[in-house]
């Protein structure tokens, strides 16, 4: 009875546990569904949201998704694999061959006391054999160490290649970002002018409509002509913004139709105070990826010359060879003059050399490696001249645009004052409309020049960071 009671109690507890499990499971499933639904909703909502990114965010995203950088990273993997091969060449290489198969019968009577020369082959057994060869290089006249050196430098060249690609993408992203900002500022300027122009046209139309003796139809035609030009510029600016946005979106891996805008609203001059040109020159030697690539490339090429030179000499090695075989239907014969490939056991340690002697092939390969090395030296000479020039040019561009910002700002502020005074005089009856139009034209031109100068300043600073490799240091 007690046992029955225990059992029923146990089954009750089990039943309760099951119910609890079912309830908990249902609740958990419900919550999971709720969370899942919420996540789907959020994801959908995010899909529909406008994406607004700052310059840093755009650069980060473009670098993340760039296929060029992905390709360069695999280039690095290639050199890492070569390094692994070179490192492993110093360790022993073991070759194992194991085979099994049907075995023809062999009895010692066939050769004892006299060799029987007519024995019918009867395959009625199986055999198995294993051969092991171990080769350990002792001295390679620098072949292995040269390949190791070449592979290590190759990795650094590939890493610098990734930096180079990243630097290219940073510059391209900055160019697109600043282009959008410049176009937006230009659009604002055009719209500012357009508002006033539309007002003036309305006024001129009204004057003609009411038959004002001060109305001049030619003025209206002039204003409408100017409006056409303003609209054409506006269309061009809108197209520029759309194209630059598309290019930026694509470079960040977004689809073309994505609702996207940049975080900044207006182009401002670079806030960072520039260093002396000598600082940039020094930095370019240290950070510029091409310099790193050339420095490491030369080391790799030099190592490859040594590797080719090592082929003039033999490769020394020690080895071990062991072989064992057995068959179910063959007698073992212990006689050093008789070797049974299907039934034997032996081992040997040896020392050896491997030497390929040719009459010009190795020399040709050494010469080829030397030529590759010298090609790189010439490339370095070119870079030694071209990169400092590029740095200096970007620096001078930046300095020029810095001065231009000040000058064009003075110019457009004065043009603005001219415009204000001309309007005030016109309203007072002591100034003519032509003066207002001239002042307006000068203001538009000077303001546009100022916007361009700010863009040039931003771009020349970006070019300077690119030329010195400091842009990579900034994002690192």
């Amino acid at each position, binding site marked *: 009875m007690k046992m029955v009671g225990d059992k029923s109690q146990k089954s009750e507890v089990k039943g309760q546990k099951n119910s609890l499990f079912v309830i908990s499971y249902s609740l958990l499933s419900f919550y999971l569904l709720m969370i899942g639904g919420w996540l789907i909703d959020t994801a959908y909502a995010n899909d529909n949201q406008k994406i607004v990114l700052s310059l840093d965010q755009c650069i980060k995203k473009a670098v993340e998704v760039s296929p060029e950088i992905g390709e360069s990273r695999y280039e690095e993997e290639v050199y890492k694999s070569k390094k692994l091969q070179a490192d492993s060449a110093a360790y022993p290489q073991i070759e194992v061959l194991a085979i099994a198969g049907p075995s023809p019968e062999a009895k010692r009577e066939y050769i004892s006391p006299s060799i029987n020369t007519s024995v019918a082959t009867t395959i009625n057994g199986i055999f198995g054999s294993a051969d092991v060869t171990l080769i350990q290089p002792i001295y390679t006249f620098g072949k292995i160490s040269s390949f190791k050196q070449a592979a290590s430098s190759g990795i650094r060249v590939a890493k610098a290649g990734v930096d180079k690609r990243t630097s290219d993408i940073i510059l391209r992203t900055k160019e697109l970002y600043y282009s959008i900002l410049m176009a937006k500022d230009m659009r*604002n300027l055009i*719209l*500012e002018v357009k508002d006033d122009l539309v007002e003036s046209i309305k006024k001129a139309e009204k004057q003609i409509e009411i038959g004002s003796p001060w109305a001049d139809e030619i003025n209206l035609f002039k204003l409408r002509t100017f409006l056409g030009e303003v609209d054409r510029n506006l269309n061009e600016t809108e197209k520029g913004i759309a194209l630059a946005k598309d290019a930026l979106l694509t470079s960040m891996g977004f689809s073309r139709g994505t609702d996207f805008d940049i975080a900044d609203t207006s182009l401002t001059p670079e806030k960072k105070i520039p260093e002396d040109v000598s600082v940039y020159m020094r930095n370019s030697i240290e950070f510029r990826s091409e310099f790193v690539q050339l420095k490491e490339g030369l080391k790799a090429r030099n190592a490859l010359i040594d590797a080719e030179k090592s082929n003039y000499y033999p490769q020394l090695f020690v080895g071990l060879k062991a072989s064992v075989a057995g068959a179910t239907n063959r007698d073992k014969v212990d006689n050093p003059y008789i070797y049974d490939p299907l039934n034997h056991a032996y081992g040997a340690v040896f020392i050896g050399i491997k030497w390929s002697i040719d009459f010009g092939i190795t020399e040709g390969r050494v010469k080829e490696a030397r030529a590759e090395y010298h090609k790189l030296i010439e490339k370095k000479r070119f870079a030694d001249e071209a990169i400092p020039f590029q740095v200096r040019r970007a620096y001078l561009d930046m300095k020029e645009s810095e001065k231009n910002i000040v000058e064009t700002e003075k110019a457009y502020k004065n043009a603005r*004052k001219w415009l*204000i*005074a001309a309007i*005030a005089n016109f*309203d*007072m009856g*002591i100034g003519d409309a032509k003066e207002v139009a001239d002042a307006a034209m000068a203001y538009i031109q000077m303001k546009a020049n100022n916007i361009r100068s700010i863009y040039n300043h931003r771009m020349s600073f970006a070019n300077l960071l690119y030329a010195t490799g400091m842009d990579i240091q900034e994002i690192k």
Partner: protein
Amino acid sequence: MRFKIQDLKLKKLIICYPLLSLWLFAVICLIHAVDVYADTPTQQVKQTVDKVLDILKNKELKRPEKTKERRALIRKTVLERFDFEEMAKRSLALHWRNRTPEERKEFVPLYTDLLERSYIKKIESYTDEKILYIGEKIEGEYSEVNTKIVTKRNVEVPIDYKLLRKNGKWEVYDVVIEGVSLVNNYRTQFNKIIRTNSYEELVKRMKNKQEEELFEEKAR
């Protein structure tokens, strides 16, 4: 006896009433004076600007048929704060002294009318612009209020008001828009016209403009 009492009451009333009135008048004057002097130039400029903006935002007054009424209200508000006579005097500068009282009587309203029209035209185009009061300078009876208009396209337009204290009230005698003083500009232009032509030529041109404006106003 009854008369006497009444006479006494009357006497009291006759003596006390003027005293009370005088006292009350003094208190009112003081309150008014405190009120006027408590307002800084910025507060006074702001009051006027806010009043004008209230008129411009008034939906009822926005209707085309209410244009005249709206402009009259703006004009009245602006006149309370701007000392157009002082502006005209400063704009004519040396030539003001050579003007007869009749000429002055003719010039000030003409100048005021054209300037008002110009101001009203500009201010009527303001809708959602932000007006920031960014500074104030007071030197004796003179002060300057620095403001900035931030347009809907985020363009900042600095406008400074130069004020002169007259009878405890700050009155605008010059407006400096983006560094251009209206009074200085008019002074140069007026001087140029008077020197190369004549004062009569200046007035003729201004009247011509006023006629043009009035013609357009009537046509509306």
